[in-house]
């Protein structure tokens, strides 16, 4: 039963986030490439550095932290409002009355699903962001295709991917647990469910930003 519930959450919280992550990452990569290009307009700098700059920005920060903040909005509010509604409509009481540990039945599959799937979303985001930068950068004429491809391969440090994925796992745990906590402890009606949903997004976003600093210091120093 828990396995089936986890699979359901993987689809609901993971697979259904691929679309928004792809769209945002594509445009994010495009804008990063254009901004890097316009800010490094100097004959001293080789143009392939635009590709390098875009790659490192996407891997180190955008695909982990910014995507996590976006998912805090989408997945976090979803979790808080779903669990909050279950609380105010006595569905959680119904589970408890059947002798089921409601927290473990409702929350655990969501935590497991986000922790498992969000690293894949980060990888999708990295790939899409770099492709977005390439397409828009070459279309706008700020960099040649050859330079961009050379740049994204230049001085590549594989540990940056590991760093990004470690951050993603922490952020996924923060999003699911903070939001679930807000939803699970709702008291009242639909107004309180809405408030819990807002709180879930705000609290998980702030916690993500705080942990971003801590993890960066721990993992990159």
């Amino acid at each position, binding site marked *: 039963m828990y396995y089936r519930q986890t699979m359901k959450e993987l689809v609901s919280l993971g697979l259904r986030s691929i679309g928004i992550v792809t769209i945002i990452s594509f445009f994010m990569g495009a804008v990063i490439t254009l901004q890097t290009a316009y800010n490094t307009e100097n004959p001293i700098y080789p143009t392939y550095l635009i590709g390098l700059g875009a790659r490192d920005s996407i891997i180190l920060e955008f695909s982990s932290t910014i995507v996590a903040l976006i998912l805090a909005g989408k997945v976090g509010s979803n979790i808080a409002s779903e669990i909050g509604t279950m609380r105010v409509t006595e569905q959680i009481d*119904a589970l408890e009355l059947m002798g089921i540990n409601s927290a473990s039945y409702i929350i655990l599959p969501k935590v497991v699903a986000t922790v498992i799937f969000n690293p894949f979303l980060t990888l999708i985001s990295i790939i899409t962001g770099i492709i977005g930068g390439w397409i828009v950068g070459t279309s706008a004429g700020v960099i040649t295709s050859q330079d961009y491809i050379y740049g994204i391969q230049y001085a590549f440090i594989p540990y940056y991917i590991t760093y990004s994925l470690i951050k993603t796992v922490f952020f996924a745990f923060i999003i699911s647990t903070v939001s679930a906590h807000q939803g699970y402890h709702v008291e009242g009606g639909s107004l309180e469910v809405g408030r819990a949903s807002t709180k879930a997004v705000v609290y998980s976003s702030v916690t993500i930003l705080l942990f971003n600093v801590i993890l960066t210091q721990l993992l990159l120093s």
Partner: protein
Amino acid sequence: MIRAEHISKSFGDRRVLTDISAVFEPGKTNLIIGKSGSGKTVFLKCLVGLLDVDEGEIYYNDVPFTRLDFRGKKELRQKMGMLFQGSALFDSMTVEENVRFPLDMFTGMSYPEKLDRVNFCLDRVNIVNSNRLFPSELSGGMKKRVAIARAIALKPRFLFCDEPNSGLDPKTSIVIDELIREITVELNMTTIVNTHDMNSVMENGEKIIFIEEGEKCWEGNRNEILKSDCSKLNDFVFANSLARQLKDSSK
């Protein structure tokens, strides 16, 4: 049989239940009546263990429920079914999945066996050809009936109903009342119903407890309620002129 002895419950400084004792017998529909905010839902939640009592003991067939550990309570709860005020069906599941849920969680039955049981329960509450519907596609009365089907899926020994008629029209209310009465007798369950619906009181009241401001004020049955001298009970039961005329004519 369920026996509650000297139950008291407070939320902070606010005392909600004071020294309530009652015995609920099997095969009977036991009613808890009282005004909104009188403490009857809190009493029901204490009985099923959704709220912990501050003082007193609750016995299920002489098993001291209040003193059981988590595992003991979990085992006993598999013998309980509850119909919540808002039905509390799981939104993300179909009618069939809702009724099958307790069977999935607590039995080793095969899928065909579970399906047979689900269809039997749904048939018993007169829900047909609705297995694939979601709760949002059902009427209020249908939701209540599906919730009853889910509550009886594991053949419980104890059934609790929190205001089963709230939000229903008088005719559907009577259908739900009849259903609760019939399955109580069929399964020889100890059924406790929280209500302030006077139709239910007169139809189902084999044993009635009246709670006012967290205290038990009166105990009896539907015949005795018409002749009671308890002024608080009379104020509640005969609140409208039609009911007062009925009382006067019964004298």
